């Protein structure tokens, strides 16, 4: 951490907004690109959001590649977070639909004989009861399979994105390292 002053003639700056629970890991990632944090502020509205101010020398070797790698890293990190958030949204939607259909069918099946014991009511009651049972009997295992598939897809995507992020960070480290060596020589 350095003092809050920034010289725009010799330094580049970057401000990111980040969730506080990920702040440390994100900061470490940006360090690999040569960014040094010089200030951090809390968001004025959200308690769990922080704004981190970075700076880096303007004349830095391999800047173009570092900039592209950084964008790729940010995209991958955000994709990872998005994937985590939405990993089960399809099975969740299906599960909700199954629960709604079965409970509604069950409710109708219970209500119909209460209204009257007419034959057609009893037949309809049977049909709705059967529908509720079938929806639950078929829907739950099918949705469980779907959830399993989603989890597998999520795991695969997570592995892929983490590998991508690791690769990017490794390359960034190499580039920054090369820069240091060049400076030393």
């Amino acid at each position, binding site marked *: 951490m350095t003092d809050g002053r920034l010289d*725009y*003639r010799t330094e*580049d*700056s*970057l*401000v*990111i*907004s*980040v*969730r506080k629970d*990920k702040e440390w890991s*994100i900061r470490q990632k940006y360090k690999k690109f040569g960014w040094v944090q010089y200030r951090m502020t809390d968001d004025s*509205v*959200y*308690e*769990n*959001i922080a*704004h981190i101010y970075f700076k880096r020398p*303007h*004349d830095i070797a391999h*800047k*173009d590649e570092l*900039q*592209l790698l950084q*964008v*790729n890293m*940010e*995209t991958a*990190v*955000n994709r*990872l*977070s*998005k994937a985590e*958030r*939405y990993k089960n949204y399809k099975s969740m939607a299906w599960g909700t639909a199954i629960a709604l259909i079965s409970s509604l069918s069950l409710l109708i099946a219970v209500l119909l004989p209460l209204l009257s014991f007419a034959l057609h009511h009893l037949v309809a009651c049977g049909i709705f009861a059967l529908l509720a049972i079938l929806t639950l009997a078929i829907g739950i295992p099918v949705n469980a399979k779907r959830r399993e598939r989603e989890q597998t897809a999520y795991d695969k995507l997570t592995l892929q994105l983490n590998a991508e992020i690791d690769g990017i960070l490794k390359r960034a480290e190499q580039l920054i390292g090369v820069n240091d060596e060049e400076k030393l020589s």
Partner: protein
Amino acid sequence: MMKKNYPESRLGRNTIRKAVYNDYKVVRIQTETNGWGAIKTLIVVGLLALQLSVIVLIYVFLSYLLKWYMAFSYALCLVTCVYVLSTNKNSLSKAVWILFILLSFGFGYIIYFLSDERIFFGRSKRRYAAIFSRAEKFKDISSPVDRPETACDVGYLQNTGGFVAYNDAKLKYFPSGATFFDDVLNTLRGAQKFIFIEMYIISDGVLLDRVYDVLSEKAAEGVDVRIIYDFIGCHKTLGAASKKKLKKAGVKLQEFNRLTPRFSVALNIRDHRKFIIVDGRTAYTGGVNLADEYINEKRMFGYWKDSGIKVEGRAVNAFTLFYLRQWDFVTRAEEEYAPYMNASDCHSGESLVIPYIDGLEFDYRIGKNVYENMITGARRRVFIMTPYFIPDDSFVQLLVNKALSGVDVRLVIPGIPDKSFVYSVTRNFAEKLLDSGVKVYCMKNSFVHSKVMLTENCAVVGSINCDLRSFYQQFESAVYTDDKAVMDDIERDFEYTISNSEQITDQNRMRKNLIHRIYAGLLHLVAPFM
């Protein structure tokens, strides 16, 4: 998200922020916005809409009072359609205009004539002609060209715009805005006589601050510092305070084509050129504007891929002449050219360099035709990098024919759009080429803003997009060259960009989607204005 306990009055703010803030995002880069620009745009658009409404109301009023006006309108409608067909507009523009005139029967032709550059740009064109004839004596004599592969292109450029071929220039290609502006700043620091800048966009920010520091210092030393900027390009980005600061520092500022709330063709004619000329010894052009996003200091649409070229040697004379002519046009003054010309030394070299410009001052669509001539002459490869790909039929057909003939045709477009509707049309046009064997690439997580074309014979680096606005409506600048080193650099840039791109294939094309095809088809109606 956890919320702090705010009084009721703050809750509204919370709601607004939540809508803006995608909370699945872990990282969000802060960018700047200028609300005043949007208000100004809104006012101007409102006033334009008001004028259009007045035109429509007048029409309704007249048609109510005078029944025979309908017959008159019908005749005028037909005459206008015939007139449109006789113009040298591209076929897509003609089709769209005729459709508009017929659909808006009775007042469409009025709007057309209010938008016709042949009528409303005539006076400006005469002024350009006078400036050109005064500047004629400062033109250099072309160097001899002995390569048959480029002879036709050279001939075309000389015969249409009087552009001069040089064979003693030193060139350097920049594959990014960051490297481009680092070099520009170094050159500016060494300026002794004059600095001429012509930019489409100048934006408040770190880059302008860095450039301002040098310009103000140079102006104080007595260096003649001038800037021409496009009014539309800068109206949302260059604040009044910055203009005042620049003027106070001694920089001469001129805006091109100030937007007035009056419906005319002039609204659509923009100065898209990018020049930086220092002492008549060094000149720069390319796709980059003077704004933070071009050097990736500000994040707009992922990584910003851009390019530019530096020219040293006698060829800079051509740039100086282009600039002084434009300065005369915008200031309506008669500038003394002699003190600014022939400042550069000769460099040893055999490569061909032709700086050229395009705009409504010329009778030919030079930018488009040079691209087409290059494609026609290619036998092995045609590589194109452009942010927008909305060309006309002749351009598309040339690319298709070349690809079908076995030429390696590659097109690199952005992976992230800057304007979604323009991108939809771009993707649509690009994907139409796939069947003929053209390889289309989208640079991942990036916005490609470079305007580069490379064949095995030559290369062009400049501000000319492959779209109808650049081809027909805007003032553009570029450098044509067959310099081997520059062509190798551009080839490496293409290889690097393509290695970071996703190739569009049958599997990931957008056109498969019916809704997208309908949407893109509708957007074709406004494509000539994009």
